[in-house]
């Protein structure tokens, strides 16, 4: 019995990509969020990255929309330069003390013009750029930072340390410098806490072998990332740090600070370094195709979706060299640069070579500060200092009410972090579901004035941006020029158009002067459109009657030496905008009710988890399973990587859904047809011959995958040759022959990483190692051989691999061109394999052969067509974005989890099932959705039924009308249209127009250049 009331808010510690995702999920599903970030801006490690693997998307580009959304969210309170000092209370009602360091800059006033930084005389090492360059003592963390507010580094500021200087205060046009700012403490009440503080990259300094301390050309991978980045110290121009020469040869050393208990105490695999090294090598190659790139590694661990393909491309297309060797040491040799010795396995000799740059692929570890925090919160850690979680509750810490996601839970990449962030949001919110929407704020929207048919009355507001614009551009001249343009009724120049008082001015003028269209000439619409549109809405004007002119980023900032021409350019741009805005019409956003029921397809462990997660929040769920039993592949698994019994937990999970009145379970069921779209799906389900139709607002795809049945290694010809899951079955039955076997052989990559199935099945290495250990437990004298290509026991599963070797299990590597051969002569089974150390063939007589068989996708084509969701080349469903939306589809209202996405172990499947449920909750809890107003529309009288728009649209928005007067003509569903305009530009008949960017509107701009 809880004595205190439950609080409808969640605190998130850490503003990296994990924290950001959790915060947005929670704030968008009815909870108030406090985000506590220790640095001056959010973004974390991802903000430092140049590109992200395996697609080489620009990291900042994909991340910044999330940063902006978070920064503007009315239900997220951002506490920067802050840390948790104390947590009291109980789950549902924690009292948290937060310590906030002084920023010395007034966040309300700072306009991020950068004038202070320019005049600051004190240079400090730039942490964001990994100390490769200097920044100033007053600074913004990085150009796209959120909040984009400057802060003073008190340890280095001359004013704060010596009471001299004070330049920034003199320069600041907004009067934002607060030298007398003080540290503060906040006492906050929250219902749940999510820990997402991220990791620290291993610091190789102090280690004499890598010469990192004294050789500037030995860099860490994060430093190299900054060297590659267009926003880095050399604008992406790759140079050798010691002499700024372009490098000819670059080497990567893998496992620096990972899988290493000699130089440091990190026995875990960091799970991301192999992929990021490949990514960096590819990007470096793209910078300079003649560059020679070599990656020195122990095992290539490319176990994620699309990773193996990227690895193959690196070898075949980019010619990147991969050498299997842990390089012992680095030394400098006079003029020759940086020299290394390594062992060439193929030739069996030690080779000496020199490189221009050596990149140390540093691993993930948890820093002392974070460890202290977990200690203070009384949270249990693993031996590797990661938070201890169990397979079936992958984001719950040992303390109830406190959850974890991201690298603190275990080393992982961005998609897995995003998945866990969704899971943490779901479980932390679910615990507070009775308080949903109790603390969140809502914007009140006044009724809109109908201006259709009225003569345009345009207001033009020109911004000085302090002196950012007016120091180059003659703002008064631009304002006066605008006055004489057609339909302009009111002009004004403002010191800051974005400030609160200007918003009030715009609002007043709209009312008093009857303005019905607004132009603001200031900075960029990419960040400021929403702000001004909000002002329009508050003044009862349709938000689409607005146009921004960018005279700062595209004007004063880039034409410093051409004031007259820049002023002329600004006038031209204002004229173009006025011409366009006069032609704009109010646009309507369709409001769509969201049906509150959910359909979960697939009754395996993922489907069960999703269904239960949604039901716990009060939503009704239909759980559809094609076989007669729930549980899927989990029915066949013996135990998890951390030794938990699967059957025991699975039975509990099954019982919980069977007993749940909110969940209707349909077994022996098949989906026959799907109509509709987000919020309003109608699905026809055939249950053993009985058809029925159900309505649902969201769909979760959890259709799983299958164990591949091998057609090699004599599989099926002898009872002693089993697949990985068949061996698990024997364990479950406690089959006596297991303990009686004297020799057992595991063959890895059966059906994976080949031409037919080029991907890595991710779980087989850990599974085989685990099974091998279980066999050893049954019969310690058993000789066990694992024949592998690369051992991929990523993350903390590396400890299993270590344990296996310690227990005498023999690991023999084989090559794809020299696969093991299984023989059966009389009744004797044997495996012939070439030993990589001895360089000779071994003949192993064995009693048991386990084939670590691939995970093969189901045939997903039909389901793909029903929901208009794509399937990738490998047969798995293709998510909306490999990094930041791993559980969503480009089709709204449909979500993805489990093996249908990609092979993964149970803990990751459960996390993704919870993440998919979190995405679904985000949508369901809104009850209605607004579409965008700038959608395309067909003018039926011009349409010639050619079907080009239907062919072109990536979102399936256009379709032929099937009945009535307009039968056969095209029509665009505004709920599906995303407003790209590809159809409008491609329509042969000029029948399609894109609202807000109509052809005559753009032509009007061209006319007025």
């Amino acid at each position: 019995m809880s004595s205190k009331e439950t609080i409808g808010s969640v605190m998130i510690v850490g503003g990296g990509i994990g924290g950001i995702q959790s915060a947005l999920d929670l704030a968008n599903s009815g909870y108030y969020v406090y985000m506590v970030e220790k640095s001056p801006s959010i973004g974390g490690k991802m903000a430092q990255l140049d590109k992200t693997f395996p697609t080489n998307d620009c990291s900042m580009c994909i991340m910044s929309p999330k940063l902006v959304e978070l920064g503007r969210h009315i239900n997220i309170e951002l506490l920067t330069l802050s840390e948790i000092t104390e947590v009291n209370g109980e789950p549902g009602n924690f009292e948290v003390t937060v310590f906030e360091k002084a920023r010395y800059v007034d966040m309300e006033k700072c306009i991020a013009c950068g004038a202070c930084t320019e005049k600051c005389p004190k240079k400090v090492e730039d942490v964001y750029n990994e100390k490769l360059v200097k920044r100033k003592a007053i600074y913004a963390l990085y150009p796209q930072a959120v909040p984009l507010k400057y802060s003073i580094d008190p340890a280095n500021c001359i004013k704060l340390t010596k009471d001299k200087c004070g330049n920034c205060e003199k320069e600041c046009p907004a009067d934002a410098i607060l030298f007398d700012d003080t540290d503060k403490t906040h006492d906050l009440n929250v219902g749940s806490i999510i820990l997402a503080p991220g990791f620290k990259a291993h610091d190789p300094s102090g280690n004499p072998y890598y010469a990192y301390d004294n050789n500037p050309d030995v860099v860490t991978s994060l430093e190299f990332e900054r060297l590659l980045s267009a926003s880095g110290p050399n604008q992406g121009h790759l140079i050798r740090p010691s002499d700024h020469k372009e490098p000819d040869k670059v080497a990567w050393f893998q496992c620096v600070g990972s899988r290493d208990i000699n130089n440091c105490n990190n026995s875990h695999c960091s799970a991301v370094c192999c992929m990021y090294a490949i990514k960096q090598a590819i990007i470096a190659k793209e910078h300079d195709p003649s560059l020679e790139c070599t990656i020195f590694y122990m095992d290539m661990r490319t176990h994620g979706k699309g990773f193996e393909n990227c690895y193959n491309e690196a070898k075949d297309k980019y010619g990147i060299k991969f050498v299997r060797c842990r390089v012992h040491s680095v030394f400098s040799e006079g003029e020759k640069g940086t020299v290394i010795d390594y062992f060439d396995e193929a030739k069996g000799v030690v080779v000496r070579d020199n490189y221009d740059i050596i990149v140390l692929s540093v691993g993930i570890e948890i820093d002392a500060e974070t460890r202290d925090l977990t200690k203070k919160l009384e949270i249990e850690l693993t031996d590797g200092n990661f938070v201890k979680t169990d397979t079936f509750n992958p984001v719950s810490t040992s303390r109830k009410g406190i959850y974890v996601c991201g690298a603190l839970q275990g080393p992982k990449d961005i998609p897995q972090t995003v998945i866990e962030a969704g899971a943490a949001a779901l479980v932390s919110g679910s615990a507070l579901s009775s308080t949903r929407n109790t603390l969140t704020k809502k914007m009140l929207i006044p009724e809109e004035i109908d201006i259709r048919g009225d003569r345009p009355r345009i207001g033009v507001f020109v911004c000085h941006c302090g002196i950012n614009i007016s120091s180059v551009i003659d703002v008064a001249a631009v304002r006066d020029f605008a006055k004489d343009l057609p339909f302009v009724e009111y002009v004004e120049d403002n010191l800051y158009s974005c400030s609160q008082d200007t918003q009030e001015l715009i609002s007043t003028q709209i009312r008093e002067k009857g303005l019905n269209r607004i132009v603001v000439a200031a900075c960029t619409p990419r960040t400021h459109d929403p702000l001004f549109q909000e002002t329009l809405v508050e003044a009862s004007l349709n938000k689409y009657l607005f146009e921004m002119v960018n005279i700062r980023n595209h004007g004063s900032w880039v034409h410093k030496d051409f004031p007259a021409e820049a002023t002329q350019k600004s006038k031209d741009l204002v004229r173009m905008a006025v011409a366009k805005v006069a032609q704009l019409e109010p646009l309507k956003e369709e409001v769509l009710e969201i049906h509150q029921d959910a359909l979960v397809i697939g009754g395996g462990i993922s489907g069960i988890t999703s269904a239960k997660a949604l039901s716990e929040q009060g939503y009704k769920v239909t759980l559809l399973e094609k076989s007669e039993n729930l549980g899927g592949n989990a029915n066949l698994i013996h135990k998890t990587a951390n030794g938990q019994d699967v059957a025991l937990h699975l039975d509990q999970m099954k019982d919980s859904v069977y007993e749940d009145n909110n969940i209707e379970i349909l077994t022996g069921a098949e989906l026959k047809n799907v109509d509709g779209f987000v919020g309003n799906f109608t699905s026809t389900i055939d249950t053993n011959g009985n058809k029925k139709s159900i309505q649902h607002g969201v769909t979760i795809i959890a259709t799983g995958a299958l164990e591949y049945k091998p057609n090699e290694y004599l599989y099926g010809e002898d009872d002693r040759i089993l697949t990985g899951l068949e061996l698990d079955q024997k364990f479950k039955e406690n089959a006596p022959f297991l303990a009686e076997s004297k020799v057992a052989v595991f063959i890895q990559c059966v059906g994976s990483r080949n031409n037919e199935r080029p991907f890595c099945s991710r779980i087989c290495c850990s599974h085989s190692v685990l099974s091998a250990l279980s066999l050893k437990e049954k019969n310690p004298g058993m000789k066990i051989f694992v024949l592998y290509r690369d051992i991929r026991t990523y993350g903390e599963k590396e400890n299993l691999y270590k344990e296996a070797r310690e227990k005498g299990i023999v690991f023999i590597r084989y090559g794809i061109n020299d696969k093991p051969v299984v023989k059966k002569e009389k009744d004797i089974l044997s495996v012939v394999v070439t030993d990589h150390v001895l360089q000779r063939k071994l003949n192993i007589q064995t009693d048991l052969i386990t084939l670590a068989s691939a995970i093969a996708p189901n045939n997903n084509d039909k389901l793909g067509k029903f929901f208009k969701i794509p399937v990738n080349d490998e047969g798995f469903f293709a998510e909306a974005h490999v990094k930041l939306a791993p559980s969503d589809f480009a089709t709204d209202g449909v979500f993805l989890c489990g093996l249908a996405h990609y092979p993964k172990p149970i803990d990751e499947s459960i996390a993704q099932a919870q993440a998919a449920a979190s995405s679904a909750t985000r949508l369901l809890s809104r009850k209605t959705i607004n579409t965008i107003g700038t959608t395309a529309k067909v003018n039926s009288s011009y349409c010639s039924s050619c079907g080009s728009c239907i062919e072109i649209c990536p979102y399936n928005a256009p379709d032929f009308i099937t009945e009535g007067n307009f039968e056969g003509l095209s029509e665009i569903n505004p709920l599906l249209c995303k407003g790209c305009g590809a159809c409008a530009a491609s329509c042969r008949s000029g029948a399609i127009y894109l609202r807000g960017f109509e052809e005559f509107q753009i032509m009007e701009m061209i006319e007025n250049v």
Partner: protein
Amino acid sequence: MSSFEPKIITFLCNWCSYGAADLAGVSRFQYPPNMRVIRVPCSGRISPKMILASLRKGADGVWISGCHPGDCHYIEGNYYARRKFTLIKQLLEFNGIEPGRLNFSWISSAEGVKFADVAKEVIEEVTKLGPAKYLIKSCAEV
């Protein structure tokens, strides 16, 4: 004609190249003030008609920039754009328009330097060509 200052109509997609231009600003990378930017949701929104209209209405050059192939915010809009632009460029060149009048590029929102560099190149190219006259309907010179 050393004082000739061309006007170049620049179509930028909202998600990548417009962002690059913003970043060039934030980073203060300088380029001459000859661009007149029209922001569009996607390079796929731009129809050949708009290119023709620009040249007809007195722009001396047209520059279109979108996301890198594969990076399109709308999945594949820039591929459609690329196909269309290749055709219209060939057609215009066939009709006697100098190749340098019409320029395309793919710039991501992290490539501020590239934006400024390409801007300079395009301006230089068009300045060299002098005023566009080919498609302009004008009164007889008196």
